């Protein structure tokens, strides 16, 4: 395999005052690959996600993204403008709380169309048609294209958020506990959607979750974090079925069977 990774994180460290959140973390993601970062509260996984998605400058380390045109962009050496442009086009962030990732006062169609308009789309009809297409893809009734997100259920808001992010066909999507706070049946539907979208679109994704079942279902690879460090990583089924590190074994054995 000579293909270069899509994202290369080296020596990423971050501390909040004297409290170390991440310590010299190395991570790589290849095109089309889904990586799950699992850990319990305080493991540093959310801090890691914020640093590698361009939302928070890390204390140390580099985050290098290989753009569509082949250029390597060191996210934190790049200008604000470059970073924000990438965040709107080739990258995407799905927040745990969909209200953080949506414009609540804007209709579903407007939310999905925004990324298109942000890069210059100027034909109302075409924008609306594309928005409708994506609503259908995330299984939202197209008849609700003009409704406000406040009138949607939590699961629908989350799917709307996903459509809003995917409309620009990003190559790498970051998801922060995407099923957190949702009812179990709603979670299941969302996970199925994520699974089929990532497969059909060849999307690379980094999913932060505390739920091993989500990791097993969606991820090709898994990184287990504890105390700011990656204690074990590898093929998802290998790490979950043959855990080596004591902490991973603890985590795996702690999951109650249904």
């Amino acid at each position: 395999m000579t293909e270069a990774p899509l994202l290369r994180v080296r020596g990423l460290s971050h501390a909040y005052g004297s409290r170390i959140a991440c310590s010299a973390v190395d991570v790589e993601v290849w095109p089309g690959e889904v990586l799950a970062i699992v850990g319990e509260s305080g493991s540093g996984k959310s801090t890691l996600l914020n640093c590698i998605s361009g939302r928070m400058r890390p204390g140390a380390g580099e985050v290098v993204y290989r753009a569509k045109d082949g250029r390597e962009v060191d996210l934190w050496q790049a200008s604000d403008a470059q970073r924000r442009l990438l965040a709107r086009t080739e990258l995407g962030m799905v927040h745990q709380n969909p209200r953080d990732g949506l414009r609540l006062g804007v209709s579903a169609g407007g939310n999905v169309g925004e990324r298109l308009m942000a890069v210059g789309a100027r034909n109302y009809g075409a924008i609306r048609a594309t928005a409708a297409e994506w609503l259908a893809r995330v299984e939202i009734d197209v008849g609700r294209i003009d409704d406000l997100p406040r009138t949607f259920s939590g699961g629908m808001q989350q799917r709307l958020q996903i459509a809003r992010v995917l409309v620009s066909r990003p190559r790498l999507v970051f998801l922060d506990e995407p099923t957190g706070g949702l009812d179990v049946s709603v979670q299941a539907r969302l996970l199925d959607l994520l699974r089929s979208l990532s497969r059909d679109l060849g999307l690379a994704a980094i999913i932060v979750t505390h739920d091993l079942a989500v990791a097993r279902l969606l991820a090709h690879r898994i990184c287990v974090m504890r105390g700011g460090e990656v204690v074990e990583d590898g093929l998802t089924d290998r790490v979950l079925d043959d855990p080596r590190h004591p902490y991973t074994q603890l985590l795996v054995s702690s999951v109650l069977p249904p």
Partner: protein
Amino acid sequence: MTASLRLVDVSKTFVLHNQDGAVLRVLDRLSLEVEGGECVALVGPSGAGKSTVLRIACGNYAPDWGRVLVAAGGRATDIACAPPRAVLALRRQAIGHVSQFLRVIPRVPAIEVVAEAARLAGSSPDDAHARAGEMLDILRIPRRLWSLSPTTFSGGEQQRVNIARTMVVPFPILLLDEPTASLDAENRAVVVDLIRDACRRGAAVLGIFHDADVRAAVATREVACATLSRAA
């Protein structure tokens, strides 16, 4: 295409850190070769490590020592040290694994479970769907069940979906862990035919078959577990 699977000096020890550091030594310098066209049956008592061998062969377990060489489509890869995406690529196109338990997502219909394997191996969605239907027919899963999730199926039906998922792709390497365990005589015969067909087309098959008749029908060679932990 000359397919082959070679385990060289493979050792596997489980250390259960959360159970007072209990140590389970399962494999000790195991060496084993399966060539294309062969069907090697692992025999031996329970707990001897037979399933572990299969899991190591597909990358599900990682050996502590040794090499796991998979040769298929003109390329050889050592699974024990290959990067995860290489192993995933092999699982999509080169290595088929029928485990004892069918792990399914509750909301995926049986035909999708099988078609997905074909799609991952490179078939178009239509072809994959067609081939999946063929395979389910061969394994005598009634059509009315195709759109249902296998979670509601009987053990035998689940096992046959499991087998269909593996056999729908002409994998050069097949790892079969008790493939006929929950099947009646008729269905066993179907599976036996599928395995023999695989061997005939040059696949290297490594399996565990408790049923002596099935073993006799498919295996070209037997390897006893007690003798595994030695250079072959």
